[in-house]
């Protein structure tokens, strides 16, 4: 594992007896006390996640807004030039597939940070640099010098308010602000990937251990990638490479809402996406819950009777619902909530039914 990257919190995780796994080139904690304990902590109190493996790319320069308008499907001009607003968005290929899902944070007229998936960081950097020709823009990968810590759960905001030099609970969803938290300078964003309220704190890699220590001392439970994946599936939040990829359009992944075809600038993928919007996808993302106790897993086939109608894109036992749940991509005609389907688990059909998404939301 010597070629794996480690975040600046590695030592803190090891001291807390984390179990590590390789993930997108990083050696990351998959669990500490256990996935069930960690999920419960986030759903009932507050959990803490090291998500420093996610890519952080600063984009600045006089043409930064025009460049990003060309790169992403959202209308970046809607983000305030005075800063403090972020947006979930996508990089799309000309052919309409999703290159990555991202969050764009605007600091000023000409300065942004784009947070990308760890698994796509190199690909995204190449993609951005390839398309930067002719724009007055600098693209800087700040991933290894910085850290990102997510604080999530119903008690996240009271906890953060108690540690910060300003009232962070006044920050709106997808807003962000500079704040000093337990003596550490951060950029605190009201974002997350769990279905709960909370924030994601950007700081320097050097400061991260001090911030992590302060947050755990204040009662936040360290949580690993196992809990994070289960929480995001319950919240029906898509994960790149599972619910979408370069061969999936935003419309097949329930992400059509991010695509602003009428924004006042051309963007990569626009022509194809405009055409796709007018022809409803054959298969779309839906949610299912098992009737019995079996657990649906990625790749399992979904049928109605003998007809294969799709497959599981992400599945898990849901601690919050006490049942197996899954995100599935299935025949759009069968995706409405309440339909009976079968999931094929070890060659046996197991009854399930489609549910309205998300399975869980408390934010």
């Amino acid at each position, binding site marked *: 594992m010597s070629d794996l990257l480690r975040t600046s919190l590695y030592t803190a995780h090891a001291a807390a007896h984390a179990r590590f796994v390789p993930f997108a080139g990083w050696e990351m904690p*998959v*669990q500490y006390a*256990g*996935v*069930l*304990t960690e*999920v419960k902590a986030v759903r009932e109190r507050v959990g803490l996640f090291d998500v420093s493996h996610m890519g952080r790319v600063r984009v600045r320069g006089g043409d930064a807004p025009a460049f990003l308008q060309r790169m992403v499907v959202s209308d970046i001009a809607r983000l305030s030039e005075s800063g403090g607003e972020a947006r979930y968005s996508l990089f799309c290929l000309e052919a309409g597939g999703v290159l990555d899902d991202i969050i764009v944070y605007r600091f000023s007229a000409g300065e942004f940070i784009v947070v990308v998936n760890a698994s796509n960081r190199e690909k995204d950097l190449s993609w951005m640099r390839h398309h930067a020709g002719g724009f007055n823009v600098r693209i800087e990968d700040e991933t290894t010098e910085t850290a990102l810590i997510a604080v999530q759960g119903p008690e996240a905001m009271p906890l953060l308010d108690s540690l910060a030099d300003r009232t962070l609970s006044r920050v709106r969803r997808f807003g962000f602000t500079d704040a000093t938290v337990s003596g550490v300078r951060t950029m605190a964003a009201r974002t997350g990937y769990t279905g709960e309220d909370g924030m994601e704190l950007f700081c320097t890699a050097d400061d991260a251990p001090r911030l992590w220590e302060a947050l755990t001392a204040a009662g936040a439970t360290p949580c690993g990638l*196992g809990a994070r*994946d*289960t929480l995001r599936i319950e919240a029906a939040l898509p994960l790149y490479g599972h619910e979408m990829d370069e061969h999936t359009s935003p419309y097949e992944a329930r992400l059509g809402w991010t695509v602003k075809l009428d924004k006042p600038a051309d963007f990569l993928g626009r022509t194809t996406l405009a055409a796709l919007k007018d022809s409803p996808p054959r298969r779309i993302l839906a949610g299912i819950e098992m009737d019995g*106790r*079996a*657990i649906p*897993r990625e790749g399992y086939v979904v049928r109605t009777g003998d007809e294969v109608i799709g497959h599981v894109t992400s599945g*898990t*036992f849901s*601690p919050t619902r006490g049942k*197996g749940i899954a995100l599935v991509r299935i025949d759009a005609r069968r995706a409405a909530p309440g339909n009976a389907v079968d999931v094929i688990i*070890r060659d046996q059909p197991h009854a399930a039914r489609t549910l309205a998404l998300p399975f869980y939301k408390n934010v």
Partner: protein
Amino acid sequence: MSQTPTELKYSKSHEWVRLEGDVAIIGITDHAQEELGDVVYVELPEVGRVLAYDDVFGTVESVKAVSELYSPVTGEVIAVNDTLTGNEATINSSPYQDGWMLKIKLKDPAEVESLLTADGYRTEIGE
């Protein structure tokens, strides 16, 4: 360090065997349950099924992982621990006692001799 009681025999696929006459009681090891994490689902065979050595006899799943179970012996399933359904955490809390999974009537009780001793299993898992 996980528990590996010396009176039991072990398989490389992390099952344990307790011999009682010509009946083998089978479960998964403390090391296996630790590696899996919180067990939330277990699928076991029907009573009466005949298993050969190394046959897949079921599945144990944690929140994020699926692991197949392999029979460490040859014989007929004469009992299944039904109390595990809905109480899968017993496999984590008591892997060698309340967390037992199967009782198999052995075709040849001497077969158990070829399994790993506790020492052998500890070496196998690097402890």
